[in-house]
């Protein structure tokens, strides 16, 4: 009975995790509440209308977009078919982040689009300044690349 009361009190005291929405993205799913709080400081919400361009090929690469709602059409050499669609809870710009300082593709919002955006320099700063957190993010990015490579190799098999 006493334990039940303690459990009930704990539910009263438990604060909902304000930044848990970031865990929906595979590269952040291992982060703790505090690490998500630190990371959230660098995110900016951006909305795009249907048909609006996010960026064009050869533009300087500064921002990585995380899709909260809607879809993005991406055209560029990084995709085997030359075209792909980035959907809800997927990431746009992560491939280019470790490649060059310019965009390798163009991106246009397919419908009304809601994203959260982070500067790639802010992300690398967070990784560098918080090594434990950085390892978790970099592991997540490795998983992301691994999945991406296996996905694009599937049609070849």
């Amino acid at each position, binding site marked *: 009975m006493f334990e039940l009361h303690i459990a009930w009190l704990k539910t009263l005291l438990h604060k909902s995790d304000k930044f848990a929405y970031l865990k929906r993205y595979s590269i952040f799913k291992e982060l703790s509440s*505090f690490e998500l709080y*630190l990371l959230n*400081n*660098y995110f*900016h919400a*951006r909305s*795009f209308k249907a048909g*609006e361009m*996010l*960026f*064009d090929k050869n*533009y*300087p690469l*500064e*921002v990585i977009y995380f899709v909260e709602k809607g879809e993005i059409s991406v055209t560029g050499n990084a995709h085997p078919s030359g075209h792909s669609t980035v959907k809800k809870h997927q990431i746009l710009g992560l491939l280019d982040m470790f490649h060059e300082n310019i965009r390798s593709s163009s991106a246009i919002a397919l419908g009304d689009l809601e994203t959260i*955006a982070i*500067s790639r*320099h*802010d992300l690398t700063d967070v990784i560098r*300044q*918080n090594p434990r957190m950085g390892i978790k993010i970099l592991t997540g990015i490795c998983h992301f690349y691994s999945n991406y490579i296996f996905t694009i190799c599937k049609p070849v098999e």
Partner: protein
Amino acid sequence: MNWTKLIFYLFLLAVIVMGVFFYRWVFANMLLAVVFSYILDPFVSWFERRRFPRWFSVLAVYVIIGGVIAWFTMRFIPDLVQQGNYLFSMFTSGEKISGQYIVNLPFFNGVFRFIQDLDTKIPNLDLAPRVLVFLDNTNTFLAAIPKLLIDNYQNILSTISLIATIPLLSFFLLKDKYKLRKAALEFSTNRYFEVCMILLRKIDATVGTYLRAMLFEVIVVGVMASTALTFVGVPNPVLIGATAGVANIIPYFGPFMGGALAALSVLISGGSVATVIYAIIAMYLVQVLDNNIIYPLVVGGTISMHPLIVLCTVIAGGWYGGIIWMLVSVPLVYIVYSLTRVLYINLKDFEII
């Protein structure tokens, strides 16, 4: 034409103009608070990364800085005040430093004799009496400084109150740094979003790094110069060292000011020419250490501005706002120049212009 839109924009413009007019008195405070925040931000972030709430991190940094200032005050301020008073009393006691007194000092005596020789060789030159009158006038001007301070006590008090509000403004700037950044970026349209991000990052990097590096350099050069001048036996070493540290903000010319002040201090107090040479060598060694070790280590390279531009900037700054503007004009021009350059490159790259 969309009249509703036009009227709204006119209304917005009117609100901005009224806002600028109403808040114009706090712009200087805000600017200094921003500078203060940039210097302290890495320390606040360090605490924050160790799981302290941001407001607590700011307070913790304030407490530490307060402690350092208290220690510094107890350790060095009495020396600085004593040395300042000594110089001040020398200048203000009319009898002690009259023109006649100065020309009897060892170094100046030689120069004065040379001038008297010239007077005897060149008829109607009368340079020596003019030098005495000039020195007397300078002394009269310096003796009027205390009266000047009393007459301008209101300005002095308002300056002190300005300085007191800066930590308070900085507290909020530091505590809500991320919220303010987010709010600022919300104003940008999607077309300019990435350019604004790049600019903000560049401002953070250029302004923050430069200000912190400058502060560090001022302290290190001040301490090194004070120590070196103490070894050489220059009078008032702490005061001259501190002045040399601050003057060092001006590239190329600032270091000469420190050296000149040290030499002048030796000559006025009746020191030998050898001491003057030692003082100049000591200040030169401080500069060699600063230019070759401290500055490259802290800033990672010197300001890439041509000496001619630096000279013009310092002169223009001096004409515009006196000694304070002489100090801030070079960093200000450097920061504005680098930001304009980044803006131009990115507007081109994003095909906006």
